[in-house]
């Protein structure tokens, strides 16, 4: 294995659309073999950032390199080594699985095309659907086909824009297993997502809101850095208790989780003081580690205030 090399190196990338800053001075370094998760609310600039990396958009300012190539001047050479999967299903619905893969392979001028297509179909389990029209596939299989199309030219970097949106849990799990296998083979993946369980499957994460990169690091680092304190409160009478908790000093979020309410905030002392009253009434309260979701909601709330 080679020494770790930087596959994505973005520095201060900025992009505006008609005066509105969509990506604001975002920097990001992704190393070889990493799965880098890219999170943020809708419209936060994730897609724009990914499009800048693969040469679909030109940044207004800042610089960036993908695979050691400049994203502005050398985007043609980047394109040959990147597999980009758009948010929307963007293959030809009126072509079959084989025809779609064959077309992509020809565009990339893949040598020994038929073998390459057969190989990737085999790998993604698409062989039995080879003569089906892409438009007739179910959501999960469409997504597999889209991933296969990203892989057929054997890229070194995958840029996947919300690849699992609208896909069932089993298909999502298979998808992530495949991504882990691929990165194990030396591929690097930058994946945007909304799902917290997927975020936890990433080696490192970045959180972006309103165009600003708010936090980056491993999931554990992100949780630790926010200094968020969380408690689980046994919920006996639902709505009334939730209202009561939200009114307590220091409480920033109250989220129902089945039979418990999760409460979190930054000021541990104030929260403990407030929760003491509940304990006295015989309500079970236990301190727990904060989840990524709580960390991200808290980050977003902070970003909104600013």
């Amino acid at each position, binding site marked *: 294995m080679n020494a770790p090399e930087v596959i994505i190196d973005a520095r201060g990338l900025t992009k505006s659309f008609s005066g509105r800053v969509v990506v604001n001075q975002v920097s990001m370094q992704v190393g070889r073999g990493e799965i880098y998760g890219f999170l943020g609310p809708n419209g936060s600039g994730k897609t724009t950032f990914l499009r800048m990396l*693969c040469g679909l*958009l030109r940044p207004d300012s800042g610089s960036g390199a993908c695979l050691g190539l400049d994203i502005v001047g050398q985007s043609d050479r980047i394109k040959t080594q990147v597999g*980009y999967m*758009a948010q929307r*299903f*963007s293959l030809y*619905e009126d072509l079959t699985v084989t025809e779609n893969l064959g077309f992509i392979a020809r565009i*990339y001028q893949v040598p020994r095309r038929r073998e390459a297509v057969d190989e990737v179909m085999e790998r993604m389990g698409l062989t039995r659907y080879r003569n089906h029209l892409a438009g007739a596939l179910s959501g999960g299989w469409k997504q597999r086909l889209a991933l296969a199309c990203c892989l057929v030219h054997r890229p070194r970097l995958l840029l996947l824009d919300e690849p699992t949106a609208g896909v069932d849990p089993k298909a999502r799990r298979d998808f992530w297993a495949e991504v882990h296998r691929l990165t194990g083979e030396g591929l690097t993946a930058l994946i945007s997502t909304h799902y917290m369980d997927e975020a936890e499957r990433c080696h490192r994460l970045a959180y972006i809101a309103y165009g600003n990169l708010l936090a980056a690091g491993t999931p554990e680092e992100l949780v630790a850095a926010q200094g968020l304190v969380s408690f689980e409160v046994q919920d006996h009478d639902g709505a009334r208790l939730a209202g009561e908790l939200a009114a307590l000093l220091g409480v920033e979020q109250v989220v129902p989780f089945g039979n418990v309410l999760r409460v979190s905030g930054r000021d541990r002392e104030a929260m403990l003081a407030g929760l003491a009253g509940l304990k006295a009434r015989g309500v079970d309260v236990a301190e727990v580690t904060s989840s990524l979701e709580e960390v991200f909601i808290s980050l977003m709330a902070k970003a909104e205030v600013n």
Partner: protein
Amino acid sequence: MAGFFSLARFAAMVAKEFVQMRRDRVTFGMMVGIPLMQLILFGYAINSDPRHLPTAIWDADRSPFSRAVAAGMRNSRYFDVVRECAGEAEADELLRLGRVQFVLTVPAGFGRDLVKGQQPVLLLEADATDPSATSGAVGAFRALVDQALARELRGPLAGLAAAAGPVEVRVHPRYNPEAETRYNIVPGLMGVVLTMTLVIITGLAITRERERGTMENLLSTPVRPVEVMLGKIVPYIMVGYMQMGLIVVAAKYLFQVPIQGSLTLLFVLSFVFIAANLAMGVTFSTLARNQLQAVQMSFFYFLPNIMLSGFMFPFRGMPQWAQAVGSVLPLTHYLRLVRGILLKGNGLAEAATHLWPLAAFLAVVLVIGVARYRRTLD
């Protein structure tokens, strides 16, 4: 419980349609623009009894009588005498190129024979490729000649004027002697069909990529814009030639249109016209946001093409402004080119005069299209 028909639900539906109609500017423009366009075209531009048709005179006689006939033509609203020819060859050339609609030939000795009462012949040759353009003028010609000569035939010659027909007027409808409208329509249809299908098809071909999101995928691959554009256009060039072939076969065997010129020449020169239409379609597709808009734009383009090009109505029957608009449209020139080759047997030199406006149109549209396409990349 709401019954079979709820006024509230119905009103909600109507209100929603109005909001959507207002948002879709192109459709809204169509709803106002199409009736306006049709009103103007049918109301002002279209005239099925064309006047002021360009005419050349070959006067081999140069007698007071021949000059009287020429003056009569000049005074008539049907004929505009644009040229006095020096010989038969020149007159013939003008007719073949389509510069004039009529050539009047006054034979040598016309005046002498007239005075002798020998009923000399006046020959009016008409470019009858479009019979409807000439019929009115031809009908008026006979009376015009009699009237013009009546003024000359006075005194001792008055007897000649009184006799029925002091001269014999012979009308020779060239290129389409039986005045068959289908001879005119069928070759013209070639241009119309090519315009309609090619503009719409290419307009759709690229907007479809954008609408379905496949364009994004394409742009993320190493494929170049030029490769996408040409890759889209080339298959439809073949479609265009297929359509042409079909129409030529139908024209020959189904409609018995006499084919005078070279089909090879027609097919080669048609390339410019096909390319112009495809470029127009591509340009529409860079302007349209979705497939519906692309179709609407094509329709907007198609309407003046079919009305002002001389396909449906005689070109020379239109007022000056409409002719000016028509002269910009590629179909106008292509119709002349096709009719010239198929009906008049035009060769390369004659056909080329109709080719350069097509080439100019192609160049302009292509520049707009490519400029627009580049911009939409970002």
